[in-house]
Every structure is written in structure tokens, then in C-alpha cells.
């Protein structure tokens, strides 16, 4: 079973070790007022990649549950959403610290910050909805429906929001952002750390989710025993 296989966990740990070591040593270009804070790119940005990956997996299991109502799928969907929210919060915190030093204040009503905050609200509402029902079968079904509905509104939203409000992020509307930090023309030396970091964090996120799932399974076994 892929979930229990260890090779991808080892890869994830190695990639993160590489991120945490070479990420601090790699020579970085000095752009604007970023100075050395540019290294936060290896930690802040992958949080979003991980969050989106995890909530997409959560969506996948929600759809799977509706097609074939197995309680296991609902458990997966819930666990991936929970860990996704954790990474969303980490993304907000790392972003707020970075913004405090480069943009002047932790919160700037930047469309990407808004998108992140909205995702938090959506998934917190998802947990409230789940916990408001006691009938397990109904709870799983209603939660899956909300999960799918919210996801397919959220994804267009993060594409629309940047068109409506001005952004400080690179490639945003209004301000030039920080040239050289665009995904397309990222410094080659940094790119060699950035993409491994993204993969490493995603693998870590999936690993944590599988641990949550295994923990919940054990919990259930104990209750049923």
C-alpha cells in the first residue's frame, strides 16, 4: 500500500533537509528591499502549493465518497482538509512575517492574503458543518457535498480576486511587485532550491495526513473493540 510505503517519505525528508541547509547557503540575488528575506520563498510559497494539493486530494475523496459511499473515503477527505488548513495557517503566518519586513505591515489586503483567509473560513465552516450532525452517514454525505461546492467556487475565486484588488505579490495587478521573483524568471540558483522545497513540503503534508488517518482508524478500532 502506497500510504505505508516509506520511499516517498524518505525522499520528502531528504528534500526538506536540502531545503533547510542549502536554502540558507545558496547565493541569492539582492532585489529591492528583500535582502536575505528572499529565502522565505523556500518556506512561504510551498505552503500554498501544499495546501492546494491537500484540499484537492480532499476534494478527490469527497467525489469518491459520493460515487461509492465508503466511510473510509470520508475519513480521508476530512483528514486531508484538516492538514490542508494547518498548512494554510502556516502560509498565512510565514507570509505575515515576511510582509511585515518588506511591505511594512503584516496584513495588506493583498488578493492572495484574502484568498488564503477565505480558504481558512471555508474549511473552518466545513468542520462546523461536520460537527453539527450526529448521524454519521448523513454527515459524510452533506460534508462531501459542501466540500465539492466550496472547492469549485473557491478555485475560480482565487483567479478572479487578483483582477479586482491591487496586489503587492509578484505578477500582481497595480504594482510591479518584486521583479525577478516571478515564477517565470526566478533566479536559476534559487529555482534549484525552490522546486525541491515545493515537492518536499507537499510530501510532508501528505505524510502528516496519512498519519492523521491512521490515528483516526486506530481510535475507531478502539471504540469498536
Amino acid at each position, binding site marked *: 500500500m502506497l500510504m505505508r510505503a516509506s520511499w516517498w517519505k524518505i525522499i520528502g525528508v531528504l528534500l526538506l533537509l536540502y531545503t533547510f541547509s542549502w536554502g540558507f547557503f545558496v547565493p541569492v540575488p539582492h532585489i529591492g528591499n528583500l535582502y536575505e528575506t528572499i529565502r522565505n520563498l523556500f518556506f512561504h510559497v510551498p505552503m500554498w502549493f501544499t495546501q492546494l494539493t491537500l484540499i484537492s486530494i480532499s476534494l478527490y475523496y469527497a467525489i469518491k465518497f459520493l460515487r461509492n459511499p465508503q466511510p473510509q473515503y470520508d475519513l480521508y477527505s476530512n483528514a486531508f482538509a484538516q492538514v490542508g488548513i494547518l498548512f494554510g495557517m502556516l502560509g498565512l503566518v510565514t507570509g505575515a512575517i515576511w510582509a511585515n519586513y518588506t511591505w511594512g505591515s503584516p496584513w495588506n489586503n493583498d488578493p492572495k492574503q484574502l484568498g488564503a483567509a477565505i480558504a481558512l473560513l471555508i474549511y473552518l465552516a466545513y468542520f462546523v458543518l461536520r460537527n453539527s450532525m450526529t448521524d454519521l452517514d448523513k454527515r459524510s454525505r*452533506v460534508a462531501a457535498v459542501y466540500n465539492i461546492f466550496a472547492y469549485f467556487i473557491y478555485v475560480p475565486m482565487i483567479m478572479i*480576486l487578483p483582477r479586482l484588488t491591487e496586489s503587492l505579490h509578484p505578477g500582481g495587478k497595480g504594482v510591479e511587485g518584486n521583479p525577478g521573483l516571478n515564477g517565470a524568471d526566478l533566479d536559476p540558483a534559487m529555482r534549484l532550491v525552490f522546486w525541491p522545497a515545493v515537492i518536499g513540503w507537499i510530501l510532508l503534508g501528505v505524510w502528516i495526513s496519512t498519519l492523521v488517518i491512521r490515528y483516526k482508524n486506530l481510535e475507531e478500532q478502539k471504540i469498536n473493540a
Partner: protein
Amino acid sequence: MFTNHDAELATINSVNTKNPFIALFKKDLLLEIRQQYTLYGILLYIASTIFVLNLAMGSPDDKVWNGLFWIIQLFICVNAVAKSFLQESRGRMLYFYTIAGAPHFILAKLLFNAVLMMAMSIISMLLFALLLGNPLVHIGSFLLLVCLGGISLSLVFTFLAAIAARAQQNAALMAIMGFPLIIPQVLLLMKISNIAFGAVQSGLWSLMGLLLLLDLLVVVLAWILFPFLWKD
């Protein structure tokens, strides 16, 4: 005396004969006309909210007027739409389900709530102009946008009302679930409505198109997901 119950029976029976979608829509409409207390309840809600705003703000400037208007629409929508699934009893739901099918049922509800919310939005726009001053330069285009906005809000909240009713929850849960999801529509509406205040707006039609696309998306999602919600 023609009671509510008779009216329902008459319309419910017609579900069999005519197009179920039209029949279900007519049933909702008839119920609303006969059980007038809910309609008056929403109207009173609109009137008293805007009256309180009048006392609190007097006549605010354009930006505040616009912001207040759409936020009030949001709350009106939650209140107007919340009851739409709670009034149906379990047995009757099953009956509709067997004779009309879930897709017809949700589409009829969406249409009915869109019409209801459109009317409420127009009324609240008139009250806003009356009580909070009228900063609108292009009243016609704002009216069109108000109709469109009422429809957009009602579509999202109708589906959330279905979810909340299934979870046996009240309007509070609807607000929790709905407010983060409605943000793109509300932001788009506020942005587009600037044009009615005389501001020059570039890319107006692409913003309008975006709003319509979002509405379409919500209808399609509701149409696909609703059957799963009501299956027992």
C-alpha cells in the same frame, strides 16, 4: 374557505400532469402568496434594517452607500432564502422526489428564490434611495445590476439553505458557510456598481460576464450535487 393545504394539494397534483419544473415553481409561488406572513416578514425586515441605517448614518457618501447596500442584500438574502427547504416536510419531500426528481426540484427552488430575491432587492433599492439619499447617477444601469445581484446571491444561498436544512441547522450556519463563498460575487457587484455612481469603469462587460459565469457555475453545481444531498 380555500386553505393553504388545499392549494398545496391542488398544485402538487398538477405536478403529475404538467412539466414538473413549472409545476413546482408554481407551487412555491402560490404558497408564498397564500402564506403571506413570511413575505411580509421579509419586507418588514428590509424596512426596519434600512430605517435603522437611516437613523445611524443619515445620508452616507457614495462608497459607504454602495458597501452598505450590498451587505444589507446579503443579510436579506440569508433571511429570505433560509426557510425555502425547511417548510417542506419529510414525507412531502419524498413525494416530490418520486414524481419530479431532485434536479427539477432544485431548479424550481433556484428559480423561485431568484425571482423572490430580485423583487426584494428592487424594493430595498427604492428604500435606500428614499431613506439614505440617492447618490445614483445612472439609475437604470444600477437597477439592472441590482436584479442581477439579487439573482447571484440567491443562487448560492439557495443551495446552502438546502445543505443547512439537511443538517437541521438555522440561518447562522448558512451565514458561516455562505459569507466566504459569496465574496467574489459581492466584490464584483460592488466594483461594477461604481459605474452607477458616475465613475468610469473599464472592462465592464468582462466583469459582467464573470458574474454570469459564476452564476452558471453555481446552478450547474447545485444541479449535479443536489440529488446526493437528498438521497436517503
